[in-house]
């Protein structure tokens, strides 16, 4: 787990070093923004990896499972009720994310519990909460002008406070990694297999999904729906390391997630910035992530009838 932390420190240093003699408040904004993208990428990639292992489905992340849109909708509700305050949106996003996660799990398990069932159930839940969020958005904008950015996922709304708050989900995924990485490796081979080794698969699955669900929900409250990092990063990590061993795949995935989010943010504030101001980082990630998702879905369904 030290690799991603070194990377984060390195990129932060780079951000400061390249800022030259800009005024302090600009350097502070740049650092907050860089830190926000790095930490969010870290959390989403680690959560995605944990969710994929726990649910034994390589096709999911917080966005596909509906956790993201559930968290977004409840963040909007919190903003409507009390305005945008970090403690409130944090709690609200967790509640919404967990409700969406439970709904998806319940529906998917009713269907068959297969990896495809999770994608389909997640699709329904995402549609439901995205619809609710779009509907609420009109009212939310009057109370929080950046509501649209939350829908699209952007680090342009980063502040130092948010970056510091983002350390909460980082702590959660680090705890999840230390406590559950070894157990998730066992879970990969089936429930009865785990039980004969003395591991309760339901306990591991529930603890992991809740930790990953809570961590990824919180990032939604601060930077919005940043999709596909959690889906793509674990795949790249497994491909590079040629193993599903979560003890190495989770840190590698987090490193890749940090790089992806940082790069997407870098692009978002570089390309097209003179013609149409900023493209949200979330949109860039959707553009890259959606074809990737379709490719692995195609490989999964075309490759076998299992």
């Amino acid at each position, binding site marked *: 787990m030290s690799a991603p932390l070194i990377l984060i420190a390195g990129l932060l240093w780079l951000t400061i070093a390249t800022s030259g003699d800009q005024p302090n408040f600009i350097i502070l904004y740049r650092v907050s923004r860089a830190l926000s993208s790095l930490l969010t990428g870290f959390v989403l990639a680690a959560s995605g990896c944990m969710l*994929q*292992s726990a649910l*034994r*489905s*390589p096709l999911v992340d917080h966005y596909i499972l509906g956790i993201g849109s559930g968290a977004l909708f409840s963040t909007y509700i919190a903003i409507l009720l009390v305005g945008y305050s970090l403690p409130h949106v944090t709690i609200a996003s967790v509640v919404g994310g967990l409700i969406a996660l439970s709904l998806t799990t319940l529906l998917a398990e009713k269907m068959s519990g297969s*990896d495809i069932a999770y994608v389909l159930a997640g699709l329904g839940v995402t549609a439901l909460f995205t619809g609710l969020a779009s509907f609420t958005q009109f009212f939310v904008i009057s109370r929080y002008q950046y509501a649209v950015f939350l829908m699209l996922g952007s680090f342009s709304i980063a502040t130092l406070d948010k970056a510091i708050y983002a350390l909460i989900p980082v702590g959660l995924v680090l705890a999840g990694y*230390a406590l559950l*990485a*070894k157990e998730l*490796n*066992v879970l*990969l*081979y*089936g*429930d*009865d*297999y785990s*039980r*004969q*080794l*003395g*591991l309760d698969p339901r306990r591991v699955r529930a603890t992991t999904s809740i930790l990953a669900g809570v961590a990824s929900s919180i990032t939604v409250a601060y930077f919005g729906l940043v999709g596909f990092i959690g889906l793509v990063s674990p795949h790249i990590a*497994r*491909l590079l390391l*040629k*193993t*599903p*061993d979560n*003890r190495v795949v989770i840190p590698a995935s987090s490193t890749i997630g940090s790089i992806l989010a940082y790069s997407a943010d870098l692009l978002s504030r570089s390309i097209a910035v003179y013609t149409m101001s900023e493209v949200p980082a979330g949109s860039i990630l959707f553009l890259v992530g959606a074809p990737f998702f379709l490719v692995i879905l195609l490989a999964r369904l075309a490759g076998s009838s299992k």
Partner: protein
Amino acid sequence: MIVTRDLTVTYRPGLPPALIDVSVEIESNTVTCIIGPNASGKTTLMKAIAGIIEYRGRILIDGKDARELGRELHKMVAYASLVDTARGTMASRVIHFLLSSLYPVKRGFWDRSEDVELVVKAARRVGVEHLLDRRLDELSAGELQRVVLAGALVREPKVILLDEPDAHLDIAGKVWLSSYLKSLSKGHTIVVSTHDVLYALNTCTYYVLLNRGRVVFVGAREDLVSSKKLLEEVYGVSFEVVDIGGEKLLIAKYA
């Protein structure tokens, strides 16, 4: 020695029990076969002993109540089944699968060189050391069967429960497995479930015959051969006793 007392297993309320008052004693240092038709409770009995499913009644392993053994139970008892082992959906390799089988005896977060040594040793014993770096989803069913067997051996348990270990093996594999289990039984308690009565007769010392969740026969090989009538009743087919080199075997008759 494994002793079960009035073992009853019900999977779901409303369903008939999968096992009803099963009381058997399974000797150490032997290969014991659990035979019986489909849905007779073979797998359920093994899963109960392995602590995979809930049961009423008692199971004693070397005189100790299995429920009180906790983590020790999973160090002592291994259960291997091809059916219950997922091939892993994420490019899983044989070595990773076998290392995960060390879970009950493993200390620490990372694999130590001793762990890898145990895995290589188990793989060598069942002839899969050349497969260690292969992906699980690329193995043939026969290769996977051997890998699953290696997974049961890797933590060096006292009791080894094998659910249909002969399925998917070619004839050479079956003959090898039979003699391997006999040699392994010195120092271990081996319990094997199989559909193949002839295979059981060639492999095991003691037999437990289950029918609809109840034990209908426990005994040695000669007793089983002389219980031809009972077997015919349970399986609903006719058997013929054949004498091969002085050994009496049972072969099912085909119409």
